[in-house]
């Protein structure tokens, strides 16, 4: 309860500070919108905020889910086979080193008009690397003794994976997922802003820009922050449920 109160208070203080800053400097709207301008902007486009917010959300989540499936798969392949790890790792690192902002226009052209596909694809591409790396490291650094306690009883590889390798990798996996969720969100927005006639919060931001509606642009930023926080805390909650033991043992 006190925690909630402290957090709310921090937000209120931040908003007051922002309002005061704009007011004291007498900044016009196009330089810096103030919090009191935001609410009208929200209200005017409340329908769009809801539908576009939903678009951004589901695209991010779908991209992230694909990233989890593919990332875990790659991670498992690299975690279990040293040869494949040595072969795949440089490729992945190279792929990850390309700034995704440069890939966005390419993908936008490649699948022109298919906004959903474009956006999900970028969200996936930008977020699967940390997942793959964390899973592969988690699996390949599993101490042989852990494997041996089950192997010496005649357990199959699959059993060892489910009972030991997978749970032991979960903390690292969730650590990576927290990074990935933020990245996927960035990916979604990049694409939504760039692709013409797009949908989603990024597109709303872009239309604010073309119409010089600065309060709208700031309102979109706030909406993105809220969505980003929500997604992040969903991951934190899942982590508590599935890998809560790691927290206690780290103390």
């Amino acid at each position: 309860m006190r925690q909630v109160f402290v957090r709310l208070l921090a937000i209120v203080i931040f908003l007051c500070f922002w309002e005061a800053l704009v007011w004291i400097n007498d900044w016009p709207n196009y330089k810096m919108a103030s919090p009191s301008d935001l609410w009208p902007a929200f209200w005017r486009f409340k329908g769009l905020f809801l539908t576009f917010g939903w678009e951004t959300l589901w695209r991010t989540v779908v991209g992230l889910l694909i990233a989890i499936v593919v990332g875990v798969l790659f991670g498992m392949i690299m975690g279990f086979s040293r040869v494949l790890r040595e072969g795949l790792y440089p490729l992945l690192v190279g792929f990850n080193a390309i700034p995704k902002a440069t890939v966005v226009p390419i993908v936008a052209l490649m699948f022109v008009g298919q906004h959903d596909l474009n956006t999900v694809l970028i969200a996936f591409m930008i977020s699967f690397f940390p997942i793959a790396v964390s899973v592969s490291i988690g699996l390949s650094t599993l101490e042989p003794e852990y494997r041996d306690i089950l192997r010496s009883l005649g357990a199959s590889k699959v059993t060892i994976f489910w009972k030991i390798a997978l749970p032991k990798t979960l903390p690292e996996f969730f650590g990576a997922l927290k990074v990935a969720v933020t990245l996927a969100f960035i990916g979604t927005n990049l694409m939504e802003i760039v692709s013409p006639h797009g949908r989603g919060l990024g597109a709303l931001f872009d239309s604010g820009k073309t119409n010089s509606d600065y309060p709208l642009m700031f309102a979109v930023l706030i909406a993105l922050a809220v969505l980003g926080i929500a997604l992040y805390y969903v991951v934190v909650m899942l982590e508590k449920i599935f890998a809560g033991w790691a927290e206690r043992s780290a103390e």
Partner: protein
Amino acid sequence: MADTSESKAGDGDLIVIDGVSHTYRTNTGPLPVLDDLTIRVPRHGFSAIVGPSGCGKSTVTRLVAGLMKPDAGSVWLQGERVVSPRSTVGMAFQNPVLLEWRSILKNVMLPLEIVPTRLDAAARERRARDLLKLVGLAGFEDKRPSELSGGMRQRASLCRALVHQPEVLILDEPFGALDAFTREDLWLTMHRLRAEEPFTGVLITHDLREAIFLADEVIVLSGRPATVQYSLQLPDSGPRTLDHLYTNEATETLNVLRDQIRIAREGEEAGQ
């Protein structure tokens, strides 16, 4: 070749390591570790294996557990040749390797999830709880491994090695990382466990006092590549008290073993 091994294995010893040689292939070339090693442990016997560090003791345990196959020679358990891991073996290592995400009780019950057993769920849990009580861990069943001390974790690891009532218990320096008092405490626990339900065992150790306190026979391995250099049958095999270690007789035995270890290490240095 196979015929002679067959007849040797049938003569009643529960663990038979028969003329085993093994060489690891490493980046820097082949590393011969075991050379024509023969060790036999009778049913309900308990043999301690000591030897210079890195001579191949852990390799022996991995061969007996069926985790590896020897290059030459053979390993037999209960008259059957070991070609792969078998569920009648229990193992404990220097590191207790408990699973952090499971309670102590669930950790101990882990082998029962793998090994085929006639016990129902309630009986399995009772079995695990009984063992934990026997080693003095009653009341800690629902704790996580991280909430226990090193000695307590090692006790839990022993329970896990024994929970499925293995015919063969393999202990690889299980008390090596513990302080002297905890170690002595666990020695007594070992005697209690053995009296409660007899098993056939191999104990790897660096501690000669531990070897003569727990085992019926102490086997000294030579330096790498290891073979049996010396073996000593201890006079009494039943439960003992710690006072036993401070008798003249025990001191003499320890001196003999210490001499043998010295010889093994000198041999190793000369070989290099």
